[in-house]
């Protein structure tokens, strides 16, 4: 009953008109980011963080969460209509989604995808509600050593996000940690890597770095593409037939299971969830022979899995403070900017905010369906905006975003510098995901390590004498050593476009 009461209080807080507007705006902006090819969810969420810095913490996180799962649906629209995934997790939807468009069933495909996203997202959020209380109670048992051990597990995910080369992933991770160490050291108060510049004493702005590395470098690496003509489906064609509904239901159920399960495992991105869901459809669907030729199962399964994943991935973030994917790491950065530390202590220290955000996830998932299906014409019209206008407007947002963090031109220069760094890393095929992970987790890890060792007066056995931290450190080491133990990654993980 306690959980239900807390959730109801959360709904009361989330249903204020301001928070509803924030959720609505978040869904809207998230969908736009998802629709625009080239601006991925990581850059998109980072780009919009500055807009939310002046809001209260609840409203700001509600909006950023809505942006986060809005991108998951927005990417579908271009996959279905244009055969171009707006973001990596929707890539597999192009196969059957676009085939359905060619058959004149684009509207049905988009509606099924929206309903699937709603089902997957809502069930995954129910999972978050169920997990929040028991895992949140762990918060009372968490001191600096346990927190450090959680961060070890978080950083160990670098192995899962490594992509093809472990060497390059470690370079990216080390760079992220070094960037996060610029400024006054959190324990001793000594300046590090400030090169005598007062402006660097507070460190390099996280938002400017992320917007530069992920957003600006993406624009800098644009290549001239062909322009495409998009036709939005008419309103009448949006309704799937009864047969299509019947065929989608089992796929949605499988997609929910796969997306939810993978969302709980840090390091598994939405792309892996949708790829594995497509694989499951190929194996278990009654109409598996039609897959690839415009089968509705090929849309329903992956799209449900994708959104179930997006929402389930919030569970490790909210309850353990472990970001499961690069986008969630950026979201975690936004939490930290608002003075909220995601993890076990969130439910003890900021319980009201945490439950309001969870309630808003339900509302946001509903808004997404109500918003996206009827407005599909509007989303496709964004794609008709000429590229120079889009580029100029995105640059405008980046400059405003970087400037308004500290109301200083310095951060704009920081963004430009990191844009060039991001471009170089892309060219050298050094993955960007490990960098964002260590950028967010590094300072927390360092502080908790040093605080723990101050408690134990330099004795490292403090991490092994406490059962929770000992188990977590063992888990982290197991993940780090898994490549040596030949615990091979599934192919979907190695080929994951998000890493």
């Amino acid at each position: 009953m306690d959980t239900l009461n807390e959730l109801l209080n959360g709904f009361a807080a989330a249903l204020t008109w301001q928070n509803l507007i924030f959720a609505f705006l978040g869904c809207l902006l998230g969908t736009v980011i998802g629709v625009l090819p080239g601006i991925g969810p990581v850059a998109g969420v980072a780009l919009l963080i500055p807009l939310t810095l002046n809001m209260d913490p609840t409203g700001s996180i509600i909006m950023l969460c809505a942006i986060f799962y809005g991108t998951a649906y927005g990417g579908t629209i271009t996959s279905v209509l244009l055969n171009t995934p707006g973001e990596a997790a929707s890539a597999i939807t192009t196969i059957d989604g676009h085939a359905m468009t060619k058959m004149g069933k684009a509207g049905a495909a988009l509606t099924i995808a929206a309903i699937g996203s709603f089902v997957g997202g809502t069930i995954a959020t129910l999972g978050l509600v169920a997990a929040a209380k028991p895992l949140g109670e762990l918060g009372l048992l968490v001191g600096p050593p346990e927190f450090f051990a959680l961060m070890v597990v978080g950083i160990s995910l670098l192995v899962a996000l490594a992509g093809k080369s472990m060497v390059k992933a470690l370079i990216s991770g080390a760079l992220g940690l070094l960037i996060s160490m610029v400024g006054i050291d959190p324990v001793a108060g000594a300046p590090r890597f400030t090169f005598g510049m007062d402006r660097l004493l507070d460190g390099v702005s996280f938002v400017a770095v992320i917007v530069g590395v992920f957003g600006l470098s993406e624009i800098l690496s644009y290549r001239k593409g062909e322009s495409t003509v998009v036709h939005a489906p008419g309103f009448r064609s949006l309704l799937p037939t009864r047969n299509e509904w019947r065929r989608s239901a089992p796929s949605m159920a499988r997609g929910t299971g796969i997306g939810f399960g993978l969302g709980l495992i840090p390091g598994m991105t939405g792309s892996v969830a949708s790829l594995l869901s497509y694989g499951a459809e190929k194996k278990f669907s009654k109409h598996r022979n039609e897959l690839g030729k415009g089968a509705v199962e090929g849309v329903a399964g992956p799209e449900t899995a994708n959104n179930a994943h997006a929402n389930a991935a919030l569970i490790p973030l909210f309850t353990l403070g472990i970001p499961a994917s690069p986008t969630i790491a950026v979201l975690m950065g936004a939490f930290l900017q608002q003075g909220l530390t995601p993890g076990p202590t969130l439910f003890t220290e900021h319980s009201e905010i945490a439950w309001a955000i969870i309630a808003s996830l339900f509302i946001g998932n509903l808004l997404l369906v109500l918003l996206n299906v009827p407005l599909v014409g509007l989303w496709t019209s964004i794609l008709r905006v000429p590229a120079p206008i889009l580029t100029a407007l995105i640059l405008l947002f980046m400059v405003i975003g970087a400037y308004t963090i500290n109301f200083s031109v310095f951060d704009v220069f920081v963004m430009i510098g990191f844009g060039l760094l991001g471009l170089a890393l892309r060219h050298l095929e050094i993955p960007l995901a490990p960098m964002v992970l260590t950028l967010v987790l590094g300072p927390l890890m360092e502080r908790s390590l040093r605080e723990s060792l101050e408690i134990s007066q330099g004795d490292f056995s403090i991490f092994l004498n406490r059962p929770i931290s000992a188990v977590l450190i063992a888990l982290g080491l197991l993940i780090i050593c898994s490549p040596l133990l030949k615990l091979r990654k599934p192919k979907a993980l190695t080929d994951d476009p998000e890493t």
Partner: protein
Amino acid sequence: MTQSPTRARPARSVLAGIAAVGALGAYVLVSSVGLGLWTSLGPGPGLFPFAMGAVLAAMSVLWLLQELKRPSTTGEGADGGLVLAVVVSLVLLAALLDLLGFQLSMFLFLMYHLKIRGKRGWLSALLTALAGSVGAFYAFNYGLNVALPVSSIPVLNLIGL
């Protein structure tokens, strides 16, 4: 720009990347020793950076060995003209932001990207640039309570720029 896998030599840009990572690692290693690696209370401010410097230095060596054995491919080369145009215009914009104020400097920035680079029509370019500069200024200042900079030149400041 894509390196053919049959060529035995690593691409020049890859070698430059390896050198940069190695040099950064060496610099961090040396400077973190000066910060203090260990204090009576445990790790000092230099310990974490020292470890990262060691990782960077070691990885640059491993990467070089990998490249010498089997040269890797590099990502597609960027459009040099685009990179130059965007970066130089952004640097100029940032340099002029406090002097000319947000509205004027952003208007010029957007006009450059829309009219000169994007070859849009005058009307479309003017309207978009005005919305993105004057419109954004008022929306942020009065709508979101986020103050964007005004010009430090008195004459421009007087006329509201």
